[in-house]
């Protein structure tokens, strides 16, 4: 099993979720995060004083998948999240040693 972690633009979330459903991913965990990167931040004004806010609102997805689904899930996320403009985000793959469904105690791929 692998844990896919992807940082994407917030307004692509719905598309990504739909794309993941299509390839058979049943669950996702989403976190609101702030990203620093190549994409530049925005300026805010305060009584004429301008300050630059460097961080940008992003959304982080965590999806645990069985090896068999890995490539399809990665493809689904990257396709659906891509706008082609700077700041589209990153996708990381981490090894997952175990998974448990808390409700039933099922383990391994069956837990996902």
């Amino acid at each position, binding site marked *: 099993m692998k844990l896919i972690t992807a940082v994407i633009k917030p307004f692509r979330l719905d598309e990504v979720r739909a794309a993941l459903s299509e390839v058979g991913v049943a669950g996702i965990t989403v976190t609101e995060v702030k990203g620093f990167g190549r994409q530049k931040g925005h300026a*805010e*004004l*305060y*009584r*004429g*004083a*301008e*300050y630059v*806010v460097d961080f940008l609102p992003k959304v982080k997805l965590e999806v645990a998948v069985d090896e068999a689904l890995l490539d399809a899930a990665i493809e689904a996320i990257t396709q659906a999240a891509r706008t082609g403009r700077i700041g589209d985000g990153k996708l990381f793959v981490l090894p997952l040693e175990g998974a448990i469904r808390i409700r039933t105690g099922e383990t391994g791929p069956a837990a996902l």
Partner: protein
Amino acid sequence: MSKLHVSGGFLGAGLACAPALACAGTPAGINSGDTAWMLVSTALVLMMTLPGLALFYAGMVRAKNVLSVMMQCFAITSLVTILWVVYAYSWALTPAAGGVNAVFGGLSRLFMRGVGVDTVAALAPTIPENVYMCFQLTFAIITPALIVGAFAERMKFSALLVFTALWVSFVYVPIAHMVWGGGWLGAWGVLDFAGGTVVHINAGIAGLVCALVLGKRRGYGHVAMQPNNIGYTFIGASLLWVGWFGFNAGSALGANGGAGAAMVATQIATAAAALGWLFAEWAVSGKPTVLGIASGAVAGLVAITPASGTCGPMGALAIGALAGGLCYLSATRLKKHFGYDDALDAFGVHGIGGMVGALLTGVFAAPLLGGYGTVGTAAGSGFGHQFLIQLLGVGVTLVWGGVGSFILLKFTSLLCRGLRVDEATESTGLDLALHGERGYHL
């Protein structure tokens, strides 16, 4: 010139009605229409501080200090109320014997002694003295509350209480007496219809002194200090606008033509200043902000305050537009240039706006310019003269208020072992560290 029914403007039309109304069977002179309006004005001016000003300021600080600002305004309101009825009203607005009267009032109303249900004050002959006293109290409340903007996010709560008590007693009270209570400035002819000098310049200069004595907030200038809730600031500015009708039109001390004229001047100047700041900012930074238009409106309200009893509608337009532009510059350029941390621009808006208004009062009172004042008549006499008198009023307030505030801060610092919270408190935020609460649990 005192905040009298017959002030510098409006030519006394109001007073004439007093004897006739006496026939209505109410206690000599009390007019129910005037009383109704002054009861309401009192409520409106209280609303300017709670929740108006408190929200205006609280929205601009960081989320960790939002409650501390509300606390300061609420505590000031409570504390000043007690001081006022115990001695400050008497000291400010009743006559003292002999030369003292130039600066301080008398002691005849200590603990409200002699104020009955149907007594009236000489300064407001058509309403119950209780109402006049309470109306004036709301001015004594908002003035120290305005100073909060200067030392926000870093002053000790205990020091705030001590400083407020001292400042009201030794700065607010004498200035109010000198201008409105029968003291020498009013006698000299300084025009201050609703408190340009007494309230705004006074609070503004105190704020500047506070900002200088307390020093900058940690991180000022390099950390982004994001206003936590511009919506609060918007609500606050709106309630200040609405409540200011009580402040200015209420200063006519009756429901008469003078109140109507003051209301119109207030409305026009506020709108003009809001647009003035808005367009200045749009031109300079490319974006018109809500904080900007709201600040502009407040600047206009401040500037029209002393003039609202004597200027005409087009004078109000001019005063407002100028105040909006100048306060924009002072809050953005002046502060940057000199590097003091007047956190929420108590001086930049109230000090500068108050001075613009106080001086232009001397200009736009002239009937030649559409004003209702007794200066600058067709004969041309007294025009420059009134301007000089206004300058004198401004100067005295700046000196008395500036020096007084400095001394009282130093004294407070001794009593409270410092004026500022320690570093950990400032970094945690005053809400949690001083008050054990947090503003939001959403």
